[in-house]
């Protein structure tokens, strides 16, 4: 009873405070805005945003800006420039130039999709204002759905209720129910804690956006370029080697328009190359610092196919980490992978294995048999 009454008291006080705050803020708001609302920047921004989202439109038949120029990138590739990319371009344009690009572009593909757009000067200004504001403030956080967190909190709340009822309110007669709720809740929590901590530092399925919309599907799939052409170091060094702009330009000296992306993406590459600026790709496959991994060992000596670890890269527009790259995953593979034992005379020193193979005691030598799972093969 005591708790309830104190809660009521708290509610009353709280509502008074909120009410007062509202009054003050509206008062301040009115004081600051003596000009009519439809002449303020806030108004123009709002209209610009609505135009971008297609809530206001000069021609409702045509798709809104956001339907092609998305604010956030998703799991599938969007070849069109994103909102942010447009912001970067539009900032340097005058209203007149902006109008020309939106209403009557010259470029072939752009002219086709922008056909019929005829935005008024006022709307264009408002749209441009919104875009430049977006450049300043950023697109913000993508609203993520976290069902696991919800589940975690729900069970936490249920357990809290059960505990409170068990100790104070005692509304439910059967204590079995309390115990059951707590036991189930705890096991849900522990299971989630275990899974989350095991995943710590692992990132299976990681597919970050890259500074240039480079598609492995276009290069390795459609055009059938050998992996080793670009990843030049894969047979020699520990890292496969990320091609520098000079290597890209071997082809892109001539190829200046992509089959899917148009000119914009390749133009970024050419710009970097000509201005001598580095391209900061986002690293997809990361191993912890205490792990030594060598591509040469696996690709050259072990003769593994790239796809065995990296998956079907030729079907990925956005590169994705296919496996979790955990230690268990490595060790399992070592246990099942055959060594090219007779083909490579380095292994001639393993006399015992050779005699076992010839006698038929063994049919194959696995990587683990020649010490692939020793700690110091990877950790030193």
């Amino acid at each position, binding site marked *: 009873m005591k708790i309830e009454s104190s809660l009521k008291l708290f509610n009353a006080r709280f509502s008074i405070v909120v009410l007062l705050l509202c009054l003050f803020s509206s008062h301040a708001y009115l004081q600051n805005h003596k000009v009519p609302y439809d002449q303020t920047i806030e108004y123009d921004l709002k209209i610009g945003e609505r135009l971008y989202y297609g809530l206001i439109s000069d021609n409702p038949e045509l798709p809104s800006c956001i339907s092609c120029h998305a604010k956030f990138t998703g799991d599938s590739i969007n070849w069109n420039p994103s909102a942010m990319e447009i912001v970067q371009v539009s900032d340097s344009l005058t209203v007149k130039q902006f109008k020309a690009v939106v209403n009557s572009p010259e470029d072939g593909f752009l002219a086709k999709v922008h056909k019929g757009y005829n935005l008024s000067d006022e709307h264009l200004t408002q749209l441009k204002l919104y875009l430049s504001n977006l450049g300043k403030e950023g697109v913000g956080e993508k609203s993520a759905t976290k069902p696991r967190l919800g589940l975690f909190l729900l069970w936490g709340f249920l357990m809290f209720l059960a505990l409170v009822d068990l100790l104070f309110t005692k509304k439910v007669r059967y204590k079995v129910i309390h115990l059951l709720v707590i036991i189930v809740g705890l096991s849900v929590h522990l299971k989630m804690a275990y899974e989350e901590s095991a995943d710590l530092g692992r990132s299976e399925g990681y597919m970050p956006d890259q500074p240039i919309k480079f598609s492995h599907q276009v290069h390795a799939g459609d055009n059938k370029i050998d992996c080793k052409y670009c990843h030049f170091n894969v047979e020699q060094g520990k890292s496969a080697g990320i091609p520098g702009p000079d290597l890209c330009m071997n082809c892109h000296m001539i190829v200046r328009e992509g089959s899917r992306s148009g000119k914009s993406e390749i133009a970024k590459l050419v710009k970097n190359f000509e201005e001598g600026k580095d391209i900061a790709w986002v690293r997809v496959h990361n191993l912890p610092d*205490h792990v030594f991994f060598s591509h040469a060992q696996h690709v050259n000596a072990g003769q593994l196919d790239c796809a065995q670890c990296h998956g079907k890269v030729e079907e990925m527009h956005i590169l994705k980490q296919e496996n979790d790259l955990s230690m268990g995953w490595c060790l399992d593979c070592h246990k099942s992978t055959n060594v090219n034992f007779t083909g490579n005379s380095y292994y001639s020193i393993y006399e015992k294995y050779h005699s076992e193979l010839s006698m038929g005691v063994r049919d194959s030598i696995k990587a683990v048999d020649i010490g692939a799972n020793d700690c110091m093969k990877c950790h030193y």
Partner: protein
Amino acid sequence: MKKYWKSIEEYETGIKQINDAHIPDKIQAKEALKASRRDFLKYFGFSVASAAVLASCERPVKKAIPLLIQPEEVRPGIASYYASTFYNGCEAVPILVKVRDGRPIKIEGNDLSRLTKGGTSAQVQASLLNLYDESRPKEPVYQGQELSWEQANSDIIQKLSKLDDDKQIVFLTPTIVSPSFQSLLDNFKQKYPNFKQVTLDSYSYSGIREAYGKVVGKSIIPFYRFDKAEVIVSFGADFLGTWLMPTIFTHQYAKARKISNETKKIAKHIHFESYMSLTGSNADERYIIKPSEEAKYLLSLYNELAQQFGHPITVKSGFESELKTVAHNLVKAKNKALVVSGSNNVDVQLVVASINQLLGAYGNTVMVDKETLLYKGKDALVHKFLDDCIEGKVGAVISIESNPAYHFPSSEKFIKAINDVELTVNVSSQKEETSQFFQYVLPSSHFLESWSDAEFIAGEYSLAQPVIRAIYNTRDKHQIVLDWLGERSKSYDFIKSFWNKHILNKTAETNAFRSAWKQTLSDGVFHSDQSTKRKVSKLNLDEVSSRIVKQEPVDGLEVVAYQSISVGDGKMCNNPWLQELPDPVSRICWDNYYAISPSLAKEKKWKQGDIINIDGIELPVFIQPGNHHQVISVALGYGRMMDGPNPEIIGKNIQPLLERDLVSIQYFTDVKEVKSVAATYELATTQTHHSMEGRALVRETTLSEYLKNPASGNEMHAEIEKLHTTLYKEHDYKGHHWAMFIDLNSCTGCNACVVACSVENNVPVVGRDEVRRSHEMHWLRIDRYYTQLPDDPSSLRVVRQPVMCQHCDNAPCENVCPVAATNHSSEGINQMAYNRCIGTRYCNNNCPYKVRRFNWYDYTGADAIPFNRVDATGMTSDLKRLVLNPDVTVRAKGVIEKCSFCIQRIQEKKLEAKKDGKPLVDGTILTACQQGCPAKAITFGDMNDENSEVSKMMKDPRRYHLLEELHTLPSVGYLTKVRNTEQSNNKNTQHKTHS
């Protein structure tokens, strides 16, 4: 069984007392008390909170930025090696520099050099860190104001041309070994006729040069061939440590003393000295003399030899009878004998030259036709320069890397005189005391950023090339002088055309030259067999000997100044790797000290660490067995500022003691006054921490015993081999079984391996206070034991033993690890997984060799938590961390680490063999310690390969293992030490044991 002892405390108090060394000292006890329950809760709460924060963190986005234009020869993750030359004013050593992803990370010896065969020294290995030194001068400076290179150069040129015609322009440099730089200076002389070059060496060898001026008519230093000698007699020349070119001499010495089934002969080494030096501690016979008596001893030796050869003798000096056996040995070896002296006295060197002439050593062990081009300085010229300065005859002083404010004899006079000179320019790649007294300070590039060349022995050339773009706004020395000459060419073009004209002797810009130049640049070394014939004239020693005999004997204490193995002349003092390197004799690091004999300590009632004042310089006392009763030895090269988070002056500069207005500097002097100061200082020593309690660790024999029975001294091994039995399952090594052998007869204890190991494996530097608490981290240490009686210094013998993880097949450490962080690999390596280690230190306790090291703190910046960091020496700075080897994990706080047999190098070479589809050839894998060893004392290989070097050593009767009676079955083996002495040392060796 011989008894060994490791320190004077151990000898005096027996073994019981020594255990106290392991009891936590006061500091530790105090700190242990400080941590209370509250602290525990605080740390617990902190760790929970940090874990929660870490867990909720998003994975950081890592960027992968490829090179804009990928050069073909630079491949990510693959090291390139560039041939170059180490030279810092003392010895020159051809090197290879390992460059990973654009930054030099390791220096190795150049195995194409026929003089070093890939050998290095501790200083060569450590010189890499000076490249990443934040205290280096970064911009040209005029009177404290930064200015551009162009401005500085034009100002200097203008001031030079405005100088009066009678004013000298002096270039003050250390010895110039670069022939191309010398030719640049010749050009300078043509442009400025008043130009003069003065050589200021940090350690003077003027005496030898002057003596040879009389012997062969030109002041040279001959090239000594220790490898051709059968008897070596040295009078205070520390040729394995610091004398002339220790790296080359160590290689030669080890060659002359290599014993194998084929050559059962080793050179005999007799050493006369006043204090315990590295070379003296390696000698077969050691005689203790006072430094002031050296000349008389040599004269007596000359007389004794002359008598035995039937030549006329000169004035007797009174020690003839003591030197009978030494002379007899020399006479037997005749022209295969070599006598050297470390003295800087012309008379002494004249006697030495005459002795070598008597023996017929010229052309055999002493080559006057092939001179040594190091240490070209002459004391008389240095003094003349100072007088000229004082008299106002000098208009400009340009110091190039010579740091006169520190190295100049009587530097205070120099500093005073320099104030009146119109133009003073200091060109330096390191922070120097001189900079504050000079108007211009121009930053020159480190030798790893510079083009240069060297001719250190006539006809032996070596090129030096930059391996990284200059880190700061620096220019190499060639470039600076070229700019002053107003020439447009770059230093590279200048050196190339110089080599074209003068060294490679090929027509310019022909294919023949281009390919020869390319080859030389790739090899790094080039030699021509041209030599200058020089006639050795017979000397009349009468005048010299009467001068020597007339010298009054010094009655009282004498001070001997020597260069230490680690810090040397002090040029690389700002190098934490060298400062933390324990001296091979005293095992002390981070300070210099007065070393005195135990008997003197008893007489004066001085204890270890008592501070005494000798003629105004206060330093702590260190009791060093093997010193002459009346000799106090102390290292040069200290008293310089060490930068870092806690800048401090390390040790004291003792050069002022030697400045007695002599024309040529002598490195010993009599003590005028010595006072005890009522204070003590705790020296940081690694000495008593690893006491092995007097077991048969180092086994040795004499040559005569060895010839009778090659297994002599190692009888125990056969006994233990019979006892092989085990409860554990034996390991089955199907492929490789790695093993390492150390030939104790070759190892001189020069410490090059210790630094090489630290560089290769990211071994942290912990600082003086941590060493005092026995927290040093070196994976490889060189244990030093004394034998015989310390009261009789001349009978004192020293043995050394490099000890690293023994990679036992029955490893005691593996069984006790609760988390299996250390276990056995399929190739016989005792592996250590740092990321698995939880820091219980059970393995450390259970290791009988004490080779495991625990990271008490984060010394290298590996931890994310700054609270864990102890960085006494600035090794965690971003620039210094560039030196880390990216193939080796940087260990965080709380994990054990130890020698891994350079697993990264094993894996690299194995992979190369696999890629080529060929079996691994024995000798392809070189561990870091093995590669840098000038004596080639370390061998590494596969025991499963019957034809490998280590397999052969397994069958050597000299082979034994450390503490093999424990049945740990180590993979590291040792070969017994063989001394070239007639009688066995085993007589009267019982050391006092306290019951």
